[in-house]
């Protein structure tokens, strides 16, 4: 009886102790990073500026708590890249000016990441930021173009299986004028390689895994530029299969493709 009571009491004490930890006061940073990562994904698919900004704030808070958190540094820079990207649209021009310097400054810190795979992705993000600067540059364009390509080469040396390297290379080949080495065929080659690597890679809760839908969208654009409208449409449709609410493809690229096809 005495023993039973002791056991019962001990159990209650343990339960009591656990109850104070069931709803923990400690913050699980990884959970917050996952939350931010998902917010970013939704922001990109829906092209939602508010979500981008909220994600930016969330990663800032994480970094305040843990300034050396490499994942948070990576995602903060990635978010700033997307905000600069958003600012390419004339109606949000101020965003470009507001975030570009901060994006470059924070992006440069990604070179210090110790985790090799994450560093490879960090260099891809940094290259993306310089690509945004390149899109508004005139005389600086050849130099920035070299900078972007050099960063992607370094990223490849660190992790040759990183699909986002080839996504960026494909985007560069698509957007670079022919006289500077651009080529739609090369864009297609790089984007197809990116997609092959996406198929082989596993998605991860924490580490970067963005870019598959984007690769398909750019592949569609590349086919469209070569007037291969059937392949272009296939690519856009595949994008919507994996991301049915991808605003860019659904309300922009596909309708534009139909218009162009009707003209021909």
């Amino acid at each position, binding site marked *: 009886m005495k023993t039973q009571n002791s056991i019962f009491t001990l159990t209650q004490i343990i*339960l009591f102790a656990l*109850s104070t930890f069931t709803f923990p006061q400690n913050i699980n940073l990884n959970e917050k990073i996952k939350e931010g990562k998902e917010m970013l994904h939704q922001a990109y698919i829906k092209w939602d500026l508010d979500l981008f*900004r*909220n994600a930016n704030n969330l990663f800032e*808070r994480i970094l305040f708590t843990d300034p050396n958190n490499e994942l948070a540094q990576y995602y903060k820079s990635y978010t700033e890249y997307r905000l600069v990207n958003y600012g390419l649209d004339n109606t949000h021009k101020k965003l470009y000016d*507001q975030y570009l310097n901060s994006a470059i400054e924070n992006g440069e810190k990604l070179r210090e990441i110790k985790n090799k795979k994450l560093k490879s992705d960090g260099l891809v993000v940094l290259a993306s930021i310089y690509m945004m600067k390149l899109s508004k540059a005139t005389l600086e364009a050849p*130099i920035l173009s070299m900078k972007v390509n050099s960063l992607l080469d370094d990223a490849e040396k660190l992790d040759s299986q990183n699909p986002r390297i080839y996504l960026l290379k494909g985007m560069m080949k698509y957007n670079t004028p*022919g006289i*500077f*080495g651009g080529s739609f065929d090369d864009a297609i080659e790089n984007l197809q390689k990116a997609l092959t690597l996406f198929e082989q890679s596993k998605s991860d809760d924490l580490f970067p895994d963005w870019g598959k839908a984007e690769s398909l969208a750019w592949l569609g654009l590349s086919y469209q530029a070569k007037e291969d409208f059937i392949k272009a449409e296939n690519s856009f449709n595949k994008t919507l299969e994996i991301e049915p609410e991808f605003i860019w493809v659904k309300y922009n690229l596909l309708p534009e493709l139909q218009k162009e096809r009707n003209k021909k």
Partner: protein
Amino acid sequence: MKGDRKNTNVFSVINLICVFLILYSFFNDIYPQNKIAIKGITVDDNNSPLPFVNIFIPSSFDGTSSDENGKFEFTTEKKDTIILNASIVGYKKFEKKIISKNQNEINLKIILKPTIIELKDVIISASSFSNVEEKGLQMTDMDILTTPGGAADVFQAIKTLPGITQVQESAEIYVRGGDPDETITLIDQASLYHPYTLESTYGGLFSNINVSLIKDLYFSSGAFSAKYGNALSGVLELQSKNEPENRLIMLGISLAASEINISYPIKNNFGLIFSGRQSYTYPIFLINGGTNQFSVSPASRDFNTILSYKYSNTGRLKLNVLYANDEEEVNVDMPGYQDIFKGNSENKFINLHHSNVLFNNLVMKNSISFSQYDSYWNLGILNLDRMDKNYKIRNDFDYIFSTEIKISAGFEIEKRNSTFIGIIPSEDYDLRKEAIGENLDALFNITRIGSYLELEKIDFINIKNLFITAGIRNDIINKLNLSWFDPRINLGYKINKENILSFGYGIFHQHPDPRLFSQTDGNSNLNSMSADHYILSFNHELNRNNNLRLEFYYKDYKNLPLDDSLINYSNDGYGYAKGIDFIWKGNYKNFSGWISYGFLDSKRKWLDYENLSSSDFDITHNFTAVIKYNFNLKYEIGINYKFATGKPMTPVISSIYHPEMDIYEPVYGVDNSSRQKNYQRLDIRFTYLTNLFNKFFTVFYVEGLNILNIKNIFDYTYNFNYTEKKGIESNFGRRLLVFGMQINLQNELRKK
């Protein structure tokens, strides 16, 4: 047994307490009694709501973003002291300690201050052009580099703008009826008084400023800010490039010049830019004809080095060193004889420039500079050595009170020594070697102290989109007993996104040519010259890529030096310049360029012009069309067509023979009562862009200058007795074919 019952009772109490505590902690987590609500609003220092501010408690994840109205609300664990943070890019981080004690709710107004305050809008002044968007109608470095016939020269490109009259083929800028001395050139706050190569009686041909070293450019043809003084007509302000981020070598070679530009980052935030150019005109004339014009074909060289060091986030030190020299020997036809004009010059310039931002909203720029220009002219009896030394210290301060108000102030001390030594002809019609000459040994020393104060206000008198720039300037030249105050004002109204109306007014003073103060044949009591500017300007943005500007202006010149039989020179001279300027600039599909037109009516009574008559720079109609067409980004063709009314000239109506000297003296008719033939010129340029060896960005070009081979006359020469006249064309005015290439060798230096 009794003991067992006692033990059971104790355990029961403990059990009850534990159950109670478990239930308490469980329900407390779901329905917390120890939470506090934090709510409020985030605003900037103008009390405007700031959305998307990150408000949070560090070390916890309690926080939120402010909404579109700046409002926020969240809960956090109750503590005696809470540290609250707020941040958003472009603003200083906010931190506040809150004592919460027994409160359940805290209401806050968070005011965030910008990290560097800037005016919320950029004020565009009348008559301004800049490569910095919104500082004026845009004139980019690409425009300068690709203007056909412009030889990638800053001054030649500016000459295609309205209000700049085509008086010569030279690079000198004649602004709205004013001569080139009425326009000042500044580079990083330092004055550059001789920015041209091959200065001769026809003016400098090109500038010795390499456009590849220029970061920002600002040009105004009237009603400019109080920051600029001692100039009656215009200002060209250049900012040189900062430390390079990447290693770059550019090599250029053409029929007329060769060039090397090197950008070299030495360390983080410290780098060097070097430019070296050598121009040689002999190959052009060999291929195109015309070598007989020269005994020594004009040649020049310039070397420019910039060392730039960014020592902090906002602080930068820059050293700019320029050296240039040139020479030419031109065969000259004079009435009844021929001779060779020999000219050479040397230009040295050094400027130490510093800039920094103090206290977040005080921008400070300082410069200390020295320049020396030496030139030698020889033609017959004329044998003249000239030296100009210039020392200058300049400080500028911009204090940004808020996003609507900026106050600027500054001062400069400039000392200019000019010496003229040699022999000049007694009579300007007789330059023969055996002519009578006068010895000249003149030294002019002028120290000018200038200061200014200026206010820029957006939403002036609380009227939205009404902006004003108002300033006052004072200059003192003790030695000449000159002192003046110049008020300047620019008032503008942004009617809507596409349309801006502005009005500019200002008084502009400038001291006359120092030679006129000479004790022997001048007047040491001369006063300063002045011009009152009135400008009405209308800017219309057709779309993002196309802009129009229409301007009406009137310049009232007063106190100009005038020949006087008693005192050599008086200040009784006067004049005016009035006109209309128009420019369309933009692009459409594959076309880009600009069309400018200026109408000018300019008259002066000054120097030896006894009556009010057309000024030497009264070019009634000026029309320029620069149009470029781009084929698939590889090929580009461009044209530059210019038309200008003929330059005023004073006709020779007869002559008087002087038997003692065996020479005829021309007798002139009414001042500037006649005009030369209208000026016309068409230049064409083909450009081919490629990536040599798939690595090096390269430009090939072929240019046809004056492709229609129109004989443009700038002056006349006569036979011995002035009964026959012959037009003098510009040495570079014939049809010329020039070709060249430019290759960029890039090598990125990665940041570690």
